C-alpha cells in the first residue's frame, strides 16, 4: 500500500495518460478501420487490393516494431516533428485499425444477403446500402469482438511506456529510480489494468444486451 500512496503523483497522471492514449487511438482506429473495411468490400477491385495489402502487412508486423519505427526512424525523415505521445497514438491507430477492419468486415458477412438485395431492389447505390442498411446492423452484431479489440488496444498502450511516453507502462522505471519496490508497484499497475479491463467488459455486456439485433 505504501508504494501506491507514496507515488500517487506517478500513478494518477500516468494512468490518465494511458486512458487518454486509449481514447484517442480507439476513436482513430474505429474511424480508420471502418474506412478500411469499406475499401475491402467496395466494387472497385483496386480499392479492395489496397485494403487487403494494408491489413495483411500490418497484422503480421509486431506492434513494438511499429512503435520503434515511429519513435526512432520517423524523426530522421524531417517531415513533421511529432511528440512521443502523438507518435504513440499514431502507432496504436495504424496497428489497431487493421484489426478493427477485420472485425467490421466479418460483421458485414453476418448481415443476411436479403438485406442488401432489398436495398438494391429499392434502387439504393453501394454507398447507401453500406451506410444505411448493412453497416448499422453489422456494427451491432460485432460489439463483443470489437470491444475485445479495444481491450487489446488498452493493454497494447503499455508499450508506449517503453518508448518515452509517461503512461502506466512507464511507472516501473520511475519507481525504480525512487528506490521503491518494483514488484509491488507492478502489481498495482496490474490491478489498475484489471479494473480498466473490467469496465470495458461491463460496457461490452450491457451493449451486447441492448444492441443485439433480433433476427
Amino acid at each position, binding site marked *: 500500500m505504501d508504494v501506491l500512496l507514496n507515488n500517487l503523483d506517478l500513478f494518477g497522471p500516468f494512468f490518465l495518460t494511458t486512458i487518454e492514449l486509449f481514447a484517442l487511438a480507439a476513436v482513430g482506429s474505429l474511424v480508420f478501420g471502418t474506412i478500411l473495411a469499406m475499401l475491402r*468490400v467496395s*466494387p*472497385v*477491385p*483496386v*480499392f479492395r487490393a*489496397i485494403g487487403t495489402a494494408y491489413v495483411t*502487412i500490418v*497484422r*503480421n*508486423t*509486431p*506492434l*513494438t*516494431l511499429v512503435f*520503434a519505427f515511429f519513435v*526512432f*526512424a520517423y524523426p*530522421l*525523415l*524531417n517531415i513533421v516533428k511529432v511528440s512521443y505521445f502523438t507518435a504513440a497514438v499514431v502507432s496504436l491507430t495504424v496497428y489497431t485499425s487493421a*484489426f478493427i477492419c477485420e*472485425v467490421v468486415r*466479418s460483421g*458485414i*458477412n453476418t448481415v443476411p*444477403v436479403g438485406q442488401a438485395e432489398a436495398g*438494391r431492389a429499392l434502387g439504393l447505390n*453501394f454507398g447507401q*446500402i*453500406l451506410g444505411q442498411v*448493412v453497416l448499422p446492423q453489422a456494427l451491432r452484431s*460485432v460489439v*463483443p*469482438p470489437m*470491444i*475485445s*479489440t*479495444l481491450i*487489446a*488496444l488498452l*493493454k*497494447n498502450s*503499455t*508499450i508506449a*511506456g*517503453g518508448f518515452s511516453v509517461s503512461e502506466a*507502462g512507464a511507472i*516501473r522505471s520511475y519507481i525504480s529510480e525512487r528506490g521503491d*519496490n*518494483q*514488484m509491488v508497484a*507492478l*502489481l498495482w*499497475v*496490474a490491478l489498475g*489494468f484489471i479494473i480498466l*479491463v473490467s469496465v*470495458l*467488459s461491463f460496457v461490452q455486456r450491457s451493449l451486447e444486451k441492448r444492441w443485439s439485433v433480433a433476427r
Partner: protein
Amino acid sequence: MNNVLFDVPGPKSRMRHRLYAVIGIVVVLALIAFVVYSFYDSGQFTAQKWEWLQYAQVQSDLANAVVATLEAFALGAVFALIFGAVFAAGRLSDHAWVRGISTAIVEFFRAIPLLILMFLFYYGLPTLGFDTSPLFAVVLGLTLYNGSVLAEVFRAGVNSLPKGQAEAAYALGMRKTQVMFTVLLPQAIRAMLPTIISQLVVLLKDTALGFLVTYPELLYYARYIGSQGAFGRPIVPSTIVAAAIYIVMCLLLTALATYLERRNRRSKKHIEPTDRKAEQVMLGNAAGGQAFGGGLGGSS
C-alpha cells in the same frame, strides 16, 4: 460475398470504377513515393547505411537474433499450449472449486498487459530474491498470457460440439476422461486449429516485446545496429530489414492457418460450431490475432 452488396457493374459503372481505380492508384503511389523520397532525401538509401548487411559478423549476429526470436517463440508456444490445455480442462471440470480456481487464473492473466507481466518477472522477481533472465521473463510472460487465451479457445471448441457427442460416448460406458480425450478434444482441436494457429502468430509477434526487457531478439538487434555510428546510424534500413523478417515469419504461419482452414472446410467430418460464444471466439481471433491482445480481452 462482395457481389452481394452491389450489382454486377454495367458498362457505365465499369468506366467509373476504372476512373476510381486510377485515382486510387495515383493516391497510393503518391503516398509511397512521398515516403520513399523522404527516406532518400534524408540519406537513408545511401550505400553507407546499407553496407552493414554485407559483413559476415553482422549476418551471423542477425541470424542469431532470429534464432533467439524463434527460441522464445518455440518455448512460449509449447508451454502456452500445455498451459491452455490444462486450464481449459480445469474450466470444464465438474468440480466447482477446480472451475473457480482455473477461471480466476485465466481471467487474471488475460486482463494484465503482457508487457507488465514480463516486467513483473524480469524486474519484480529479483526484488523477492529470485534470479531471472530476460529469456525466462519473456517465455513465462508469453506462456501465461497466450496460454490463458488458448484455454478459452480450447474451451470454446469443446463447448461448440453438439451435445450428442458426449452423450453417445457416455452411453457407450466411457469414463469422463475418456470422453474428453478420445471424443471431445480431437474434434474440438480440429475445429479450432486455425484459431489456435492465429494465436501462435500473436505469440510470435509478441516476442518483439522482449526488446523492452533486454532480451537480445531480432528487434533488439535491429535497434543495436541502427545505433552504430560506424554504419551511419542506419536505423531506418535496420527497421526495414527487421520488419521484412517478422512479416515473412508471420505470413508463413498465417499461410499454414489458412491452409488448415481450407482443408477443414472441405472435410466432411468437420463439425460446424453450434455455440454462439465459440463463434465469437473464432471471430475475435480471425479478426484479431491481436497484438498481444489476443482478442478476448475481458469477460468470457
